[in-house]
């Protein structure tokens, strides 16, 4: 059962400078929402706040009773150590952490599910390959396979198609639609607006301040995109205090 995720007046800061500024709204159960906006717009911070990895400075994230470890997050540039000598099978099996934890046995169907997940991202037979020997695009697909093992009702994808060729992107997109079809919520940070317009029914346009949130066509209007572009990337030298602060 996928719950809705509701943001109420959410503000997230880095050293008191807002990355997400007074954002309110609701990701409906089973939504397929793109998050777009310029660099530094707070997209990654928003995903991390939803996943419970970034504490809200003000306002709150209501996950509808879903615990944070049931939210699948595909980070943009993971801090993971590709040089660590683990096989693809082990990486994908880590997705079952929620069911096995540190000490319980690997679920009986794990081997089978790892194989199936690798097949569905087009990496059949890669079980014994070392993660460090893969190309960036292949490794991204392994992370998608790990996400499948997580079996999470809410999936957060941070620029999932970076460094991925067109065919792989199409394959991964199919996977995203499959997750959507299974009733999971998918929230993806993306830069390719054509892709967003084609594939994502709902879009949130962020530029630190929320610019628009709703059906993709209306959200990505020329006027909205212009407003988003005008947001200064740099922090103000001597910023004033936000008057809406609690």
């Amino acid at each position, binding site marked *: 059962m996928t719950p809705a995720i509701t943001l109420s007046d959410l503000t997230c800061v880095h050293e008191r400078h807002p990355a997400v500024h007074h954002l309110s709204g609701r990701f409906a159960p089973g939504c397929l929402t793109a998050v777009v906006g310029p660099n530094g717009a707070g997209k990654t911070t928003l995903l991390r706040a939803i996943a419970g990895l970034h504490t809200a400075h003000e306002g709150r994230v209501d996950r509808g009773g879903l615990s944070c470890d049931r939210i699948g997050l595909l*980070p943009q540039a993971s801090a993971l150590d590709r040089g*660590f*000598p683990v096989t693809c099978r082990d*990486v994908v099996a880590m997705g079952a952490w929620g069911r096995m934890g*540190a000490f319980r046995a690997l679920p009986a169907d794990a081997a089978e599910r790892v194989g199936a997940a690798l097949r569905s991202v087009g990496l059949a037979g890669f079980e014994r390959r070392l993660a460090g020997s893969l190309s960036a695009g292949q490794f991204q697909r392994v992370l998608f396979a790990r996400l499948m093992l997580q079996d999470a009702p809410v999936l957060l994808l941070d620029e999932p198609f970076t460094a991925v060729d067109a065919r792989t992107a199409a394959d991964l997109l199919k996977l995203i639609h499959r997750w959507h079809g299974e009733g999971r919520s998918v929230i993806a940070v993306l830069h390719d607006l054509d892709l967003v317009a084609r594939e994502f029914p709902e879009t949130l346009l962020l530029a630190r301040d929320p610019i628009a949130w709703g059906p993709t066509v209306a959200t990505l209007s020329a006027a909205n995109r212009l407003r988003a572009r005008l947001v200064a990337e740099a922090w103000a030298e001597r910023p004033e205090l936000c008057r809406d602060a609690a």
Partner: protein
Amino acid sequence: MPGRRLITAILFDPFAMGFMRRALAGCFALSIAAPPLGVFLVLRRMSLTSDVLQHGILPGIALGAAAAGLSLWAMGLGGFVAGLAVTLLAGWLTRATGGREDSQLAGVYLIALALGVAIISAQRGMDLTHLLFGSVLAVDDAALLLMAGVASAAVLGLAVIWRPLVLESFDPGFMQAVGGRGGVYHLAFLALVVLCVVGGFTALGTLMSVGLMMLPAVAARHWAAELPGQVRAAVALALVASYGGLVLSFHTDIPAGPAIVLTAGGLWLASLAAGPRESLARSWLHRPHYVG
């Protein structure tokens, strides 16, 4: 056949003596327990931590001896506490300096070593050389018990934390996201490392004990690509180094610690030169490539 008798005399006769057998048993136990931890230290880029450790346990051992006489357990406990303290201090310095910790760490272990030597020199009846470099004669029944007990605890401990430790080493961000407590396993891992280094101090000496952990682990990457293979290779190399080092020590009067570490060092250089993976020989050898 005189040749065979000579080989027997060199390789096996030393172990006709009880103290050599005890030392061998103890070193074998540590060879099984310590190198797997070393493999994780190497892969987590924490080799510097082992440097800190080898210097840091000495003042603890010295204080233990000063407080309770030459009791092995007091010295071991003191070494364990001091080792854990400097390791945590090193970890904190790494975070506080954003990875530019080397100068601070050098400061830490210089002070620790000097402090240890100072405390020991103030005591009567303690042999500094034995403490620093080890002595097979020091491996009595109590010391063997300490080595074997520590090794057993370390092997079991590593088996218990293996999965979370692998995940925490490979992808700490994911571990945090799925609600795993990475810091706990990191601490448990460090405790096992300190335990093993302290366990080896009677036979190998405080300065050399880390060598049996690190050198086989560094050499292991020339023998296997995957983590389990590297662990097996490191243990095998450590067993060979323990045996060869004790034989060397017996025939040449080199203390056991340096003899074992030199043997392990020789194995590492040999692996680097001609091991089956990523060795110099492999990079010079031009072998035909595959079609797919």
